[in-house]
C-alpha cells in the first residue's frame, strides 16, 4: 500500500502536569518525562455546566482535549466527524456499575449505565457541540492511539474533510482499575485534514505494518504514542513506529 498522507491542523493535550498542548510542547521539547502529578480535573469548558457536573472524568478528559484541538485548528467542532479512542473505557463507571450489580442489581443507576458505554465521551461531545457528523468510539489495547489515528486518517482521506481524533484513558481506583492498570489520566487529540491550507502544522505519512513493537501491554495508549508527540513538539522530521495491538505497528513519518 502507499502511505496515507494527512496534515495535522491542531493539537490538544491534557495531563495533570501539563494542562494544554502549549505547556506539553515546551516540556516535551525540553526532554521532560511524563509524571503522574496529582488529581486535577480537566476543565472541559465546552460542556454545559449541568452536563459537566453529570459527566464522568473520562468524558471531561476527552472533551477537554477535543475542544483544544478544534480551537487550535480554528475549526468549528460541530462540523467535524470524530474518532474517540480509549484502551480501557470508563473504568471508574464500570467499577461503580459492577459493584452495584454484585450486591443490589435492581439499584443500578440509569445515568451510570448510559455513561458506561464506550461511546459516552463521543455522545457528550456531539450533544455539546451540535455535531451530527459520524462519531466513532474504538479500542485496540495498547495500540488504541495508533488504531484511532489510522481510522481518523482513513475518514479524512475517504471524505476529503477535516476529522477530529482524540485518544485518552483515565486513572481510576478499585479492583477493576488494579487489574487493567488504570493509573494515569492522559489524553491527546488532533484535527487531521487531507488537503493542506494555512492551518497545516505538520504532515504525517502513515503505514500499517504486520510487525510488532516491543511494549508493555499495560502502557497508557497515549504514553505509547509519546515518540510521535515528542517529534511534533520539536517540529523535526522523524520516522517512528507506534504499537498497533499485539502483532502490528503503525509506521509514522513526520515530515518537517
Amino acid at each position, binding site marked *: 500500500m502507499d502511505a496515507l498522507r494527512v496534515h495535522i491542523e491542531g493539537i490538544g493535550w491534557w495531563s495533570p502536569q501539563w494542562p494544554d498542548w502549549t505547556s506539553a510542547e515546551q516540556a516535551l521539547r525540553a526532554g521532560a518525562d511524563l509524571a503522574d502529578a496529582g488529581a486535577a480535573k480537566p476543565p472541559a469548558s465546552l460542556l454545559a455546566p449541568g452536563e459537566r457536573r453529570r459527566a464522568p472524568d473520562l468524558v471531561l478528559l476527552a472533551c477537554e482535549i477535543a475542544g483544544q484541538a478544534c480551537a487550535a485548528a480554528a475549526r468549528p467542532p*460541530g462540523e467535524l466527524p470524530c474518532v474517540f479512542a480509549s484502551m480501557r473505557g470508563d473504568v471508574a463507571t464500570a467499577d461503580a456499575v459492577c459493584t452495584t450489580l454484585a450486591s443490589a442489581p*435492581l439499584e*443500578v443507576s440509569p445515568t451510570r449505565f448510559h455513561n458506561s458505554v464506550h461511546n*459516552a465521551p463521543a455522545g457528550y461531545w*456531539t450533544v455539546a457541540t451540535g455535531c451530527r457528523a459520524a462519531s466513532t468510539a474504538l479500542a485496540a489495547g495498547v495500540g488504541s492511539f495508533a488504531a484511532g489515528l489510522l481510522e481518523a486518517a482513513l475518514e479524512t482521506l475517504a*471524505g476529503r474533510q477535516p476529522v477530529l481524533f482524540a485518544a485518552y484513558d483515565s486513572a481510576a481506583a478499585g479492583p477493576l482499575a488494579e487489574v487493567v492498570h488504570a493509573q494515569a489520566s492522559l489524553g491527546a487529540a488532533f484535527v487531521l485534514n487531507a488537503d493542506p491550507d494555512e492551518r497545516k502544522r505538520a504532515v504525517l505519512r502513515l503505514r500499517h505494518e504486520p510487525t510488532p513493537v516491543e511494549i508493555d501491554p499495560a502502557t497508557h495508549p497515549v504514553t505509547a504514542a509519546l515518540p510521535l508527540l515528542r517529534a511534533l513538539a520539536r517540529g523535526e522530521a522523524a520516522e517512528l513506529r507506534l504499537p498497533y495491538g499485539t502483532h502490528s505497528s503503525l509506521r509514522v513519518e513526520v515530515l518537517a
Partner: protein
Amino acid sequence: MPSRIPPLAITAYTATSALGRGRDAHAAALHARRSGLRANDFTREPLPCAIGRVDGVEAAALPPAQAGHDSRNNRLAWLGLGADGFLDAARACIERHGAGRVALVVGTSTASIGATEQAYRELDGGRFPAPLREPMLHTPHSLAAFLQAALGTRGPCLTVATACSSSAKIFAKAERLLRLGVADAAVLAGVDTLCGSVLFGFNALELVAPEPCRPFDAERRGLSIGEAAGFALLEREGAADAPRLLGYGESSDAYHMSTPHPEGLGARRALADALARAGVSPREVDYVNLHGTATPKNDAVEAAVIGEVFDASTRVSATKGWTGHTLGAAGILESVLTLLAMEHAFVPGCLNAVMPDPACSASFAFDNEPRAICVALSNSFGFGGNNCTLAFGRAH
C-alpha cells in the same frame, strides 16, 4: 453528500442468535414466524422480562491455546465462528491474501463485561479472583483480541464500541480500509452477550418490556434484550451471486445520551448518506430492516422518518420480535437477516405486533410477504445518538 463508492463483495456470512446457529436456522425461523424469545432464565435476581438467549454458549469451550480469553462473549463468538463453515472461509481468505493484508474489524458493546461482573461477585479480599486477572479480558478489545488469536489475522485489528450501532459501523470502517489500500479483505465480527449490566441497566432506564418485545405495536412497552454473534467477510471481488455492500451512512443525533432525536435528524442523515454512497434513490429500495427496538420513542421516530422518505413500494419491518435487541451485535445480525431476506426473496413482517401502530406508513409489513429484493437497507441506532444505515444489493 458523499460520493458513490464501488461495491464490495460479501463472500461469506453467518449468524448465531436465539434463533439458532447459522443461516438455515435463521431463515427457517423467519419463514415460520417462530420467535427465539423466552422468559428470563438468565439473571440470578429475578427480572420479569423476555430474553433472546443462545442455547449451548456455556458448553462452547474455547480452544486450549485461547483459554485465557474465556468469557461468555468469547464463547458465543467461538460458537458462531463454527456455523456455516465461516471459520474455514475466513482461514481460506487469510491464506489467499496473506495474514498482513486481512483486517479484523469487530463491533461489540458488552465485550466481556460479564466476566468483570463475575469478578466483582467473587472478590477475594477486595481483589479479582486469580483466574479472572487477565487484563485484556476486562477491556473493550477482549473480543477482538480473542478472534485475532483464533484466526491469525495480522492486518489492522480494532474494536468499534458505539453501543447499538457498533457492528453496523464495522462495515463502514472495513470499506475504507479496503478502498484506501490498507487491507485487501476484512473479517467483520459483531458479538454481544447477556449480562447483568445490560439487563439491569436497560431496566433502570425503564426501557425493558415485561413481555416479548412488540416492535411497531400501538401498545409496545419496550425492548427485549438478546445476544448474538454475526460474521461477514468483505473482499473487493466475489462470486457473481455473492451479495454486495453498496453503501453506508454514519451520523450523530447531537441530542441526548439515551433518547433519540425527536425528528430523527441523525437517522435521516445516516439514511441519506447510505443512499448517496450506494447511488440509489429511495424508490429503488425494496426492503428496509428497521432498528425497531419496540421502545415507544424509537419506533415512533423511525416510523415517521420511513413514512416521509419511502412510499409503499418499499417494504419495511423490524426483526427484534424474533431475536430481541442484540445491542452491539444487532448491526451485523440484522445485516445477515437482511441478506437472508434477499437470498430467499421475502420480507419478514414485524413479529409480535398485535395491533399495528397507526403511525406506521403503508410501507410497513406485519406479515411475511414474498418479494424479490435487489436493494435493501439496515438501520442501527445507538446510545449517544450514534446512527448507522447500511445498503446491500446484488452484483449488478
